[in-house]
């Protein structure tokens, strides 16, 4: 009898508990439905890489064809080029944004006037918020063949002939790296700045009393304090080494075909296969390759972050 009653109470309390929490689950629901559609269905849709896509049969109804799409993808030289470009560009971006970001952060923290600090911080962050379309307009104003500032004003100053920037692949690694630095340096730099501002100023004062030079202070106070931040930011970027900024690589080179050898990355390749060549199979295979390898790298990078500083790991 008692057990029955206890069971009943238990059921009742469970029901009461559920009733109490129900509004919370309902609040969670709309967002969850969106993520289910926008994120989870496409994850399942990755299987399309193993299918012969057919518009009428759709994403999940098209017939299976095994690894044909992959065999096709990896038999072209493109697979190698886009993988190389993606990884090398990201490696260059990580290196430059880290080194220059730290240097700028140290510079900005050492200005005399607080007001100037604010100006510098605004200047390095502002381009970060521009869309890739605007970015491509800015770059075009400098590099346009017939009206660009480089060909019209700057190169003649040095007695050099105009350059057809949008059809010579050799210049693009430099252009893209410079553009990316111009746009993106602020993001990491501001994180470094807040880390440096967190250092107890008495460390520097003591070092100065002991006659330490600026360089010695940087080497033995600033850099060691920054190192967990540096390691974490770097590894987080390394985790995304298989993904590129589609806007940077699609908009800034203006989709110019003659410079694909140095501007084509996995993201632009997938886009062109899908939208311009209607080659869904190959595009899907390249996308699958990016998703899976990219995911593996995220996991590995996070594993390493955990080794260095657990509190900075993503999970």
């Amino acid at each position, binding site marked *: 009898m008692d057990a029955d009653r206890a069971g009943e109470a238990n059921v009742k309390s469970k029901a009461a508990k559920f009733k109490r*929490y129900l509004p919370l689950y309902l*609040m969670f629901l709309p967002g969850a439905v969106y*993520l289910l559609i926008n994120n989870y269905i496409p994850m399942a849709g990755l299987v399309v890489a193993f299918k012969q896509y057919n518009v009428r049969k759709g994403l999940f109804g098209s017939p299976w064809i095994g690894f044909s799409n992959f065999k096709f993808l990896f038999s072209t030289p493109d697979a190698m080029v886009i993988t190389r470009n993606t990884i090398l560009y990201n490696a260059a971006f990580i290196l430059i944004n880290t080194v220059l970001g730290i240097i700028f952060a140290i510079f900005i923290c*050492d200005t005399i006037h607080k007001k100037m600090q604010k100006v510098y911080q605004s*200047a*390095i962050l502002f381009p970060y918020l521009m869309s890739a379309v*605007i970015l491509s307009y800015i770059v075009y104003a400098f590099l346009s063949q*017939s009206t660009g500032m480089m060909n019209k004003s700057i190169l003649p100053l040095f007695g050099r002939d105009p350059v057809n920037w949008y059809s010579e692949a050799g210049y693009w690694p430099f252009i893209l790296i410079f553009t990316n630095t111009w746009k993106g340096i602020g993001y990491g730099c501001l994180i470094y700045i807040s880390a440096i501002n967190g250092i107890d100023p008495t460390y520097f004062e003591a070092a100065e009393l002991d006659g330490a030079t600026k360089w010695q202070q940087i080497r033995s106070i600033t850099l060691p304090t920054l190192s967990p931040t540096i390691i974490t930011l770097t590894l987080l970027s390394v985790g995304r080494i298989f993904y590129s900024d589609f806007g940077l690589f699609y908009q800034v080179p203006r989709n110019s075909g003659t410079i694909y050898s140095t501007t084509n990355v996995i993201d632009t390749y997938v886009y062109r296969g*899908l939208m311009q060549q209607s080659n869904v199979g190959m595009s899907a295979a390249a996308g699958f390759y990016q998703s899976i390898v990219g995911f593996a790298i995220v996991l590995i990078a996070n594993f390493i972050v955990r080794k260095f500083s657990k509190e*900075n790991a993503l999970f």
Partner: protein
Amino acid sequence: MREKPFSKFQVLSNVIMIIWTILVILPFLLLLVSSFTDENTLVANGYSFFPAKLSAAAYVYIFRSGTKILKAYGISILVTLIGTVINVALSAMMAYPLSLEKLPGKNGMNFFVFFTMLFNGGIVPSYLMWTGIFHIKDTLAAQLLPNLLLSAWNVMIIRTYFKTSIPDSLYEAAEIDGASQFTVFSKIALPLGKPILVTVATFAGLGYWNVWTNGLYFIVKNKDLYNVQNLLNQMVSNIQYLASSTNSNVTSAAAAIPSTAIQMAIAFVAILPIMLVFPTFQKYYSKGLTLGGVKG
């Protein structure tokens, strides 16, 4: 500050940072000056900070006969407003339950949100789904729905804010007073979470204002649905078409409207709203909240 003013190092760092600041400002200035440059001068002499002839023709054109341009701004503003409101509402509603320690099933729900930050299906299945299953091609939904309506990142930073800035005792007191869960959320969590909600609103708003990929993928025929970014993107390919054309009629027709100056004017006007929300961004980024904000 710490030492006598103008040490060698400080001079060096100021000089370099001033150079970089100029390097950042100049391109935007070039954009602005070009938008006020006479079209023929621009075509003949190229982009210049000191054009031989100034002209406001581009802006006159935009406001007189630029119905397409004004329409694109309309789409940008409309989609940004609707998208931002929905984004913030969905994010806050999702973040609140996740911030409550005692909610049964919280870990699973957390993982459900968080996993979308680690792994994604990429554009191919996403494109095939939105066009093949939901048929959003050439509808306003195409500007609104894909990717931007909710981001796990925003949910996570709001959740962390709720968790760390609102004491549990406040919630408990409200519950003892018999307030419903929804009342607690709307009367306590939302007002106290205002700083983070404003931040998330600027992220979401910037996302919608700057998006050009949705239009690129999903707006194919109905170009009335182009936002400003899509319009600018479209004008790039049109100019390229004109430049590659040997037909002299096309070229002279193009010269009649100040097309280059118009492009620069549209681009410049598109940057203005970003200046409005810039202080909020700066505040957020300067606090270095970007790291660790997703955990907790």
